[in-house]
């Protein structure tokens, strides 16, 4: 039975991860940042678990030239789910620390990785949709051009440079995934060693 329980440090780390995930509910997850010659100060858009903030109205105004749909927070069903999903994983971390079982740790890790990958895939699909589903009557049509922003990193889209990177919440999600993976690996090694 002893083999099955977690190290103290693992349990502390799990509580830390849980707390961090609670924090992530209340901070922006992702940032999209645009620059152009006529926008030297840049245009920023922030994706939160439950809303979009920043200058997305201005971005909408500019996107109409290329026929991109307007970004409207009410279009995203994810905003109704994400805060609960994050809260669920925070709870799962706490419970794992409380129950002190390796199996729980492995389950938590796998579920969180599935969630993380699903999050990124979902995000990419939205970006794909915005970038490709263009109004054919748009004033500016560049043959063969799509305007999908990068999932992570930088991409030049006509006169706009688009940057996409995790904000505090996204950082927490990556961090938690990494910590969980390390914990699972350490605990797994402990098991095989004995």
């Amino acid at each position, binding site marked *: 039975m002893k083999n099955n329980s977690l190290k103290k440090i693992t349990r502390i780390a799990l509580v830390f991860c849980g707390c961090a995930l609670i924090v992530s509910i209340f901070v922006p997850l992702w940032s999209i940042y645009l620059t152009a010659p006529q926008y030297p100060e840049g245009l920023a858009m922030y994706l939160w678990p439950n809303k979009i903030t920043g200058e997305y*109205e*201005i971005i909408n105004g500019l996107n109409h030239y290329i026929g991109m749909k307007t970004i409207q927070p009410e279009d995203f069903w994810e905003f109704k789910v994400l805060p609960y999903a994050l809260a669920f994983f925070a709870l799962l971390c706490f419970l794992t620390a409380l129950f002190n079982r390796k199996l729980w740790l492995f389950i938590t890790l796998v579920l969180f990785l599935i969630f993380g990958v699903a999050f990124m895939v979902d995000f990419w699909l939205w970006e794909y949709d915005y970038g490709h589903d263009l*109004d054919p009557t748009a*004033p500016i049509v560049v043959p063969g051009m799509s305007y999908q922003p990068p999932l992570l990193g930088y991409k030049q889209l006509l006169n706009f440079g688009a940057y996409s990177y995790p904000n505090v919440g996204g950082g927490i999600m990556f961090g938690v995934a990494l910590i969980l993976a390390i914990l699972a690996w350490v605990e797994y090694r402990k098991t095989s060693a004995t």
Partner: protein
Amino acid sequence: MKSLKFFGLGSVMALLLVSGCKPKGTETAVTGDAAERVYVAPGKYDEYYNFVSGGFNGQVNVYGLPSGRLLKVLPVFSQNPENGYGYSEETKPMLETSHGFIPWDDQHHLSLSQTNGEVDGRWLFANANNTPRVARLDLKTFKTVEILEIPNSAGNHSSPFLTENTEYVVAGTRFAVPTDDQSGDVPIESFKSNFKGVLSFIGIDKQSGEMDLSFQIEAPGINFDLSHAGKKKSGDWFFFSCYNSEKANTLLEVNASQNDKDFIMAVNWKKAAELVKAGKGRKVTTEYAHNKFDESTHTATSTMKKEVIVLSVEDMKDAMFMIPCPKSPHGCDVDPTGEYIVGSGKLAALIPVFSFDKMIKAIADKNFAGEFDGVKVIKYEAALHGEVQKPGLGPLHTEFDGKGNAYTSMFVSSEVVKWNIKDLKVLDRQPTFYSVGHLMIPGGDSAKPFGKYLVAYNKITKDRYLPTGPELAQSAQLYDISGDKMKLLLDFPTFGEPHYAQALPGDMLKDQVKFFRIEDNKHPYATKGEAESKVVREGNKVHVYMTSIRSHFAPDNIEGIRVGDEVYFHVTNLEQDWDIPHGFAIKGAQNAELLIMPGETCTLKWMPKKPGMYPMYCTDFCSALHQEMQGYVRVSPAGSNTPLIYSLNNKKDNAQSPVKAGETK
């Protein structure tokens, strides 16, 4: 001022003939690294905003220093077709006066609001010389937000000068005139008995900046030229330079230059305010306009006021004194410590400097030389700190660098002269090109001058710039005054004719409005989204609730307008982005175009004179599709029954967009 130009020019010529040598060329006056010191590299900002009086054009011009680049022309007292100021329905009330709509003026002096004697970057005050008015500009938006007409006055010259905490802005009349409750229909012969010189004290609300004509002082019928408030220990006092103590009324050039001494008038404004509070002064029936621009409705209103409290010489007997000053003093400048008052006798060959402490002592000791129309005259020597000997010819204005030095402009000898305030020794002199009037050091009339640059504003510019016919540009010249000797760095053309100017560090105005929030737009005809666009007929008035956004108007086509209609285009710029104004213009408009800031609503009144198809379009290049930002208004003959319809934008039906019927009320 034209006559002064010729006077100055004549004097320069006379000097040339007498001396028989050519003046030192500018080329030799400029030092080697001057270009480097005024060069502001692309992407860098100037250090200072320089607000320069617009003179004849009635506006305020904003330059960057040290580059001398023109940043903006701010409409204040004159209509401005560039953006519809004074033409749009919202801004027309700004130019109302008791004489009706006056769309021009002669703008002379500027004053930046101060706190504890230091410039604070909140507001800029401007005077209108011709039809007496004082304006307040908000430095968050660079817009004229208030204009107050001054009754009982003519030639609002010694204005607008501010007390050290912006409690009052003053407006002293240049022309003595019969007060408004007396008929002005009197013989000029009766000048001495009927004409008065009225000084106005306009209270300023500490928070809003709103002006209110608190009281006036009916001083003797002399001409008030310039003014400055005291500061620190002399903070309760105002000083005015006065000319024509002879009270002449013809050929003043000669007849007002007879007395060896005119006056500086010292007024204790704090005591005057207390007297008014105590119920002194008579209520004078008059009429003056108070125009205010409301930033939430983007609309100005004009109110006519009917009464003002006027204190008499008798009321002011312990709070108003004359100090003799050599002939025709022009500038009246108080040094940063508040102790020294510099009068510039523009016809005198010396500069008298008065001491505030000595003045107070002379008053306490009753050291008077007599009375002038009931005002006690302090003995010249009793108030005098000393005289700057042989400073140059035609001293006009003095500014200070905060290091104990004063700089005086010399109109006749075309130079700026630096001298020490304490020992009154001349330290340096530099030529100007030519005939300098006002000069300005950023903060140079405040308790804290920045002391790095001096700008001279010149009246004559022969050989300075490419000739432009009989009328040449006027000029400003920038000097570096950080060292012992002044160094000429730059000259740049200005609008004629620059008078007094003000400047402050650019950092002080960082907190500026970039666009107006559409949610805060309380304009009664605002259209806060394209869905709200509509056209409404009310009798022969047609109200168009129009929106503009890159790159279209809504509605973009209107039919059913008839000759004889008054069409009001209420255009709301829906943009919420910095530097994206939209313009609006329509063929045959007799007033102007509009330039509408993001989130703002402006109204253009249009009265088509004949049937036809009238294009309208955006005048400010707003986007790649700016040229497509256009539409039509169909005008039918008077009495025809073309239905009132308008089209909203629908890209699915390119040729015939869906049309909506206009409402009729």
